[in-house]
């Protein structure tokens, strides 16, 4: 197959983001890379159906997501990864600042329902608009918004992040009062 140079560049440019998305879906780097490869082969086999001028990245994300849903989800159930393996396979420098926090975040993210997780990644990390994310997921824009909101709420619960307002001034006031009483 003859690959037009601009198409080639667009595809390669989308690969880093596709990998990050695939890892969030698969929970495993090696299988994520296999998923990306299979998605790219599918895309190239159907490159005639890509409409020039439209978003190549969104098109590739859609193919990858559909392929994951039709093929990989079954496999994941067969060989379910532990959260530990997921974090381990990703983290190359455990001593690096923020890695522990990031590891906790990954664990929490892995606990989200798949539809919430993918919506959150597409909108919050991949940089797609709600409209593009809706196209990729094959659902309504309002559904994406609702999933993203639920994902954020659940993550905050899982990570025990509380509203700053909940323990900001009040907490300090209480500390001051306790200190006063002691003195």
């Amino acid at each position, binding site marked *: *197959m*003859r690959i037009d140079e601009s198409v*080639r560049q667009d*595809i*390669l440019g989308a*690969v*880093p*983001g596709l*990998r*990050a998305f695939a*890892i969030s879906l698969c929970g495993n780097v090696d299988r994520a*890379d296999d998923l990306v*490869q299979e998605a*790219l082969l*599918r895309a*190239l*086999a*159907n490159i005639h*159906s*890509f*409409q020039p001028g*439209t*978003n190549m990245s969104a*098109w*590739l*994300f*859609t*193919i990858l*997501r559909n392929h994951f849903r*039709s093929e990989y989800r079954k496999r994941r159930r067969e060989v379910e990864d532990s959260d530990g393996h997921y974090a381990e396979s*990703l983290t190359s420098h455990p001593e690096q600042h*923020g890695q522990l*926090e*990031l590891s906790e975040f*990954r664990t929490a*993210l892995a606990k989200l329902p798949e539809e919430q997780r993918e919506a959150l990644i597409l909108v*919050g*990390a*991949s940089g797609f608009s709600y*409209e593009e994310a*809706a*196209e*990729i997921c094959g*659902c*309504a*824009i*309002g*559904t994406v*918004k*609702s999933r993203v*909101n*639920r994902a*954020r*709420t659940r993550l*905050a619960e899982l*990570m025990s*992040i*509380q*509203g700053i*307002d909940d323990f900001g001034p009040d907490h300090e006031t209480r500390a001051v009062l306790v200190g006063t009483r002691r003195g």
Partner: protein
Amino acid sequence: MNPGKATGPMSQMSSPDDKKKPTKASRLDRGTRAKLGQQLRAMYDEVVSQGVPSRFSELLTDLDNNEGKQNAH
């Protein structure tokens, strides 16, 4: 095979949970949302910063080369 389409009528259709207002989620304060967003991007960017592994650039090159050979015969 059902390759993804960049456009689709589905996105225009309403779904049952369209009408629901995000009640609990809207209570998340700005600081919490910012922190979640920051960690989400940190996790994502860690992978993105690895660039394009050679297997993918080689894949495209191989496909291109194979076509060249087929045309030559």
